[in-house]
């Protein structure tokens, strides 16, 4: 086998120009496939990352009416018969497999004309959250300024607030918000800190709704207050939402479904209104978006596959020429005792080596090309290692398939005829 491989490389090296031209079809085909696959993977990774927020692994389970998330606001009052999350339920959630942390929170949508949240008579549009101690870490927020909520804030129902960047932008112009007083339902809340998302770049999206809002660029921002202070502004028995941190991205869908069942069973006591708890199946949504982008690109893959076929035929053609040229070598080898199979393997190995080298060069060219496209056109690309392995193996396979006819021809040469030919 080793002999065959070294012979094969001698044969290829002995005809550098011809070998390269023969490989060119394979190189172009593999390069096209690698470029397309890199683009597909890049798009998919981008969808997944922006939809799920890489590293956060947070699953939001919230109240739904029919198939729509139920957002509490002045016009959508807290529904009757839906309870806040009890301590036992919370523990049950924490004990689920691969749940790392659980946070329960209240949330409402507020609009500036309602004057629920004001700063110096200026109304705020956005969302207000009543959160527990673990909320910021579970939801993936980072303190960027000021201080976090303290244990005493929760224990003594302090009227303090933390804002996100959006809320700071809409309420404060060129002013440090820390230390300022917000009016929430007429009660003074002191701003103690500012948080932002731990996003790597730009905006991290944590639910499909956010994604839509992000797309419309209409998120007004968020104001957070300690959950214990929520009843000061609103009611203590309002339904809560839950955010769970999963051990890994792949667990998110299962955890979401289990939490849905637990919360629906425990929290919803009234049968009217068609309420239920539902998780944002971000993985599912990501998969849908990815499928959409895959469908268009798969057609391109088929076209690239045709160029591989053409390349393979080129390899077969050149291998037939090689066999004819080396008739005497084959005859001599058979005369001194080479069996048929050995000749067959020699030429199969040569064809496979030729296409494998072509495949490897094609992978290199494809990676370069996809990087070039990424920088020139701004589309995301990502290296897919399985695709590289498959591409190289597949090009080797092409060599074996298209080398078969020439190799069989060589192996079946009659040594007498082969030696007689001058």
């Amino acid at each position, binding site marked *: 086998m080793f*002999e065959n491989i070294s012979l094969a490389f*001698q044969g290829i090296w*002995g005809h550098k120009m011809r070998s390269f031209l023969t490989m060119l079809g394979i190189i172009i085909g593999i390069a096209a496939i690698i470029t397309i696959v890199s683009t597909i993977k890049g798009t998919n990774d981008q969808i997944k990352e922006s939809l799920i927020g890489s590293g956060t692994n947070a699953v939001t389970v919230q109240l739904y009416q029919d198939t729509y998330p139920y957002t509490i606001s002045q016009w959508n009052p807290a529904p009757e018969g839906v309870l806040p999350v009890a301590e036992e339920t919370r523990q049950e959630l924490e004990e689920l497999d691969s749940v790392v942390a659980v946070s329960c929170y209240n949330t409402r949508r507020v609009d500036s004309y309602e004057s629920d949240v004001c700063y110096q008579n200026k109304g705020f549009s956005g969302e207000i959250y009543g959160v527990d101690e673990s909320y910021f870490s579970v939801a993936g927020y980072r303190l960027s300024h000021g201080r976090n909520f303290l244990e005493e804030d929760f224990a003594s129902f302090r009227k303090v607030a933390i804002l996100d960047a959006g809320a700071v932008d809409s309420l404060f112009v060129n002013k440090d918000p820390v230390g300022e007083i917000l009016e929430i339902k007429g009660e003074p809340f002191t701003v103690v800190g500012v948080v932002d998302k731990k996003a790597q770049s730009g905006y991290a999206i944590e639910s499909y709704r956010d994604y839509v809002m992000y797309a419309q660029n209409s998120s007004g921002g968020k104001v957070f207050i300690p959950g214990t202070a929520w009843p000061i502004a609103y009611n203590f028995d309002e339904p809560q939402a839950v955010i769970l941190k999963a051990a890994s991205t792949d667990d998110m869908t299962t955890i979401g479904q289990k939490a849905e069942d637990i919360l629906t069973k425990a929290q919803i006591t009234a049968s009217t209104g068609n309420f239920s708890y539902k998780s944002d199946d971000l993985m599912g949504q990501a998969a849908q978006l990815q499928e959409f982008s895959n469908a268009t690109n798969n057609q391109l893959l088929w076209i690239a596959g045709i160029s591989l076929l053409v390349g393979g035929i080129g390899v077969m053609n050149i291998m037939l020429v090689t066999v004819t040229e080396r008739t*005497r*070598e084959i*005859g*001599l*080898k*058979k*005369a*001194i*005792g*080479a*069996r*048929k199979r*050995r000749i067959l393997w020699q030429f199969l190995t040569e064809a496979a080596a030729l296409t494998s080298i072509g495949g490897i060069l094609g992978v290199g060219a494809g990676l370069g090309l996809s990087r070039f496209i990424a920088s020139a056109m701004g589309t995301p690309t990502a290296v897919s290692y399985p695709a590289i392995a498959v591409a190289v193996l597949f090009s080797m396979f092409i060599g074996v398939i298209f080398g078969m006819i020439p190799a069989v021809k060589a192996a079946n040469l009659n*040594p*007498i005829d082969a*030696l007689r030919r*001058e």
Partner: protein
Amino acid sequence: MLLEMKDICKDYPQGKEVVKILKNVDLTVEEGDYLAIMGPSGSGKTTLMNIIGCLDVPTSGSYSLNGEDISRASENHLADVRNSTLGFVFQSFYLLPKLSARDNVALPLLYAGVKKRERSRRAVAALEMVGLGDRVDFMPNQLSGGQQQRVAIARAMINEPKILLADEPTGALDSTSGHQVMDLFDQLNAAGTTIVLITHEPAVGQRAKRVRRILDGRLLAEGEGGVGDAW
């Protein structure tokens, strides 16, 4: 009896007709023999050589080599016999141009499954035996015709064959190189190697212990035809 042929016939189809190349050939070769088969071109001597060399199979008749009937042996078995029992020397050497003298000589050992280090060692020894110990790493195109033929003889001898078959071994050489090659054959025969060669040169035939003549596909009886005849 090392080689025994009985009633060997070989037919070739040519268009719609069948041409009889060999007609009822009987031939025996003893161990240590040195036989020259002489005949004009078209007499069937190359076909006979091919059958002796297991490169071709007879249409009818029986052929036993080294005590084994191989007239109906499989292709793979014939390849093994060629590898282990026979050594070939051709008129135009047939060295592989991209392999060194050493690698050319070692090639039959590769097919015999000998390890690389051992192949190299035995190839060098065989080259020394033919007087080319100082040329082991030369490529064929760096060697003269006579030297190339000696490399080919080293290759033929490397598996210590029972019979050395030579097809016009001096046909492509000048007379000096030709004499060297024939001297080498004498040495090998003296050392116990059985040699069968075909030639149309009387000078070459005369160096053999026995001469058999072939004419129109018939092998003539020993002594028939005369050595010095021009063809």
